[in-house]
């Protein structure tokens, strides 16, 4: 097809998509005054709970709703009440289906999930004590994000172990296409990220951690973008996950740091008065802590921001629809969907870039802690 003609066809399609809802809008105007107002009263769109409900953690894995009934995967709630309380373990079905003001009683304790707009413990499971006060139990529920973590972990095991077995069986055999994929991914990280930053002798020591981190983040990011069960959990956009990854990098940097590294922190080559009054050591210690902190925040913020932008673009349809009626909402939806497609493409890029950045900085920090002094 002629490219100019194709552009015109695309443009016309786009205009028609905008016109159809506008026409619907015109049809709608007669009764928009009474009906839409009533509908808005009835079910006001709550952007905050919509956005944070989707990007945050949850006790059940909400799939969809059919005729007002939620279709969920009920994940287990596991927790221990504060102040010597007992352990509780039950299906999240009991607490997720509660109506406003209701509580669920389990083994003599009463629980409910606080609303996402609540002042205290928003979106979390809280225990209602006998005197009516709220308390947050020690909560190790297998939540939506925990489910997401396990999904990524299982996928990684299932993806890499068969390839490893093939290599173990016969490394000289002609590699299969699947092996080629695994090899390509692995060596992309190994040769592109790890080897330039870590001394050659130490590569075998640190490569397993860095490879695992890279693929964990990469797959978690990608799975987070797939908008249906069992994916869609916002794993890497959650601080609890990135803090663990950052702490592990912190551990690998400092636990294996050599003499030179520690000397550079506590007794660097600067005038004595700078280190006798421990200015430089303090700065160096702070920098050692800030490095993983930055890793943690960078990954978390990038992924969360991407998800929030997508949710906002989606929510915009309902916000506009709520304000100006169904017609305007439909017009917005066309624009929103195009922008969301753009955002998804961008997020695909970000999914890789953030995994890449986290891994390259981790290997850089680990590599710096392994450096030998230049003059000797």
């Amino acid at each position, binding site marked *: 097809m002629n490219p100019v003609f194709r552009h015109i066809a695309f443009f016309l399609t786009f205009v028609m998509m905008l016109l159809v809802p506008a026409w619907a809008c015109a049809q709608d105007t007669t009764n928009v005054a009474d009906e839409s107002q009533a509908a808005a009263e009835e079910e006001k769109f709550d952007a905050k709970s919509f956005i944070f409900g989707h990007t945050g953690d949850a006790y059940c894995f909400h799939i969809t709703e059919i005729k007002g009934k939620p279709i969920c995967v009920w994940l287990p709630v596991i927790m221990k009440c504060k102040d010597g309380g007992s352990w509780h373990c039950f299906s999240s079905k009991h607490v997720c289906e509660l109506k406003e003001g209701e509580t669920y009683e389990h083994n003599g304790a009463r629980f409910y999930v606080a609303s996402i707009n609540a002042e205290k413990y928003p979106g979390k499971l809280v225990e209602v004590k006998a005197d009516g006060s709220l308390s947050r139990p020690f909560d190790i529920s297998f939540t939506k994000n925990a489910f997401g973590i396990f999904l990524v972990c299982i996928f990684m095991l299932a993806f890499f172990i068969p390839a490893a077995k093939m290599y173990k069986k016969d490394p000289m055999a002609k590699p299969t296409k699947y092996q080629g994929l695994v090899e390509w991914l692995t060596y992309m990280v190994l040769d592109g990220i790890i080897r330039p930053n870590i001394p050659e002798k130490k590569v075998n020591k640190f490569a397993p951690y860095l490879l695992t981190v890279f693929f964990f983040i990469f797959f978690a990011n990608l799975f987070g973008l797939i908008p249906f069960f069992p994916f869609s959990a916002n794993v890497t956009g*959650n601080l609890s996950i990135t803090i663990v990854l950052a702490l592990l990098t912190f551990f690998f940097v400092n636990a294996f740091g050599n003499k030179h590294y520690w000397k550079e922190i506590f007794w660097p080559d600067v005038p004595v008065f700078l280190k006798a009054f421990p200015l430089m050591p303090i700065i160096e210690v702070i920098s050692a802590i800030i490095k993983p902190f930055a890793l943690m925040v960078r990954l978390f913020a990038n992924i969360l921001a991407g998800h929030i932008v997508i949710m906002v673009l989606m929510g915009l349809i309902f916000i506009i629809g709520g304000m100006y009626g169904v017609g305007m909402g439909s017009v917005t939806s066309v624009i929103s969907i195009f922008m969301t497609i753009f955002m998804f493409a961008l997020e695909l890029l970000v999914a890789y870039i953030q995994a890449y950045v986290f891994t390259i900085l981790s290997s850089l920090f680990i590599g710096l802690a392994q450096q030998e002094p230049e003059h000797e």
Partner: protein
Amino acid sequence: MDLFLPESGLVIWMLIAFLVVFAILAKVAWPMIMGGVEKRNTHIAESLLAAEEANNALAGIEQKKQETLAATQAEQIRIMKESQDLKAQVIEEAKVQARQEAEKIVAEARLKIEKEQAEAMAQIKNEVIALSVDIAEKLLQRELSDKQAQNAYIEQLLKDNPPRIEA
């Protein structure tokens, strides 16, 4: 906002899951994949080197073959030439020998002829002697004084006894 506070339960799940996956992959996956690829890389590098060596060796063999072929051809030409020479020589020799043989035969034949001639001469001589003796005997028997008569008589004798010389 709780969004910026890590959740202890999720931290625990994450720590456990990630460390388990890390341990498993570090034990059974990464070293195998890296080792396998490394092994294959070395194998390929070695194979390429070996192939190059084999190629070089093959080139040497090819050259040697050409040399051998040339040498063989030269040898063939030499042998053919030699055999031709030999043939000519043999023919020459045979000719010489034949000539010698022929000469020998001719000489022998001549010798035989001479011998036979001598024998014939001897026989003639004997015949002549015997005839002479016969005539002399007859002459003596008639004791003729008459010289004319004697000659007539010799003539008659010769007529009566023609010499028996065989050709």
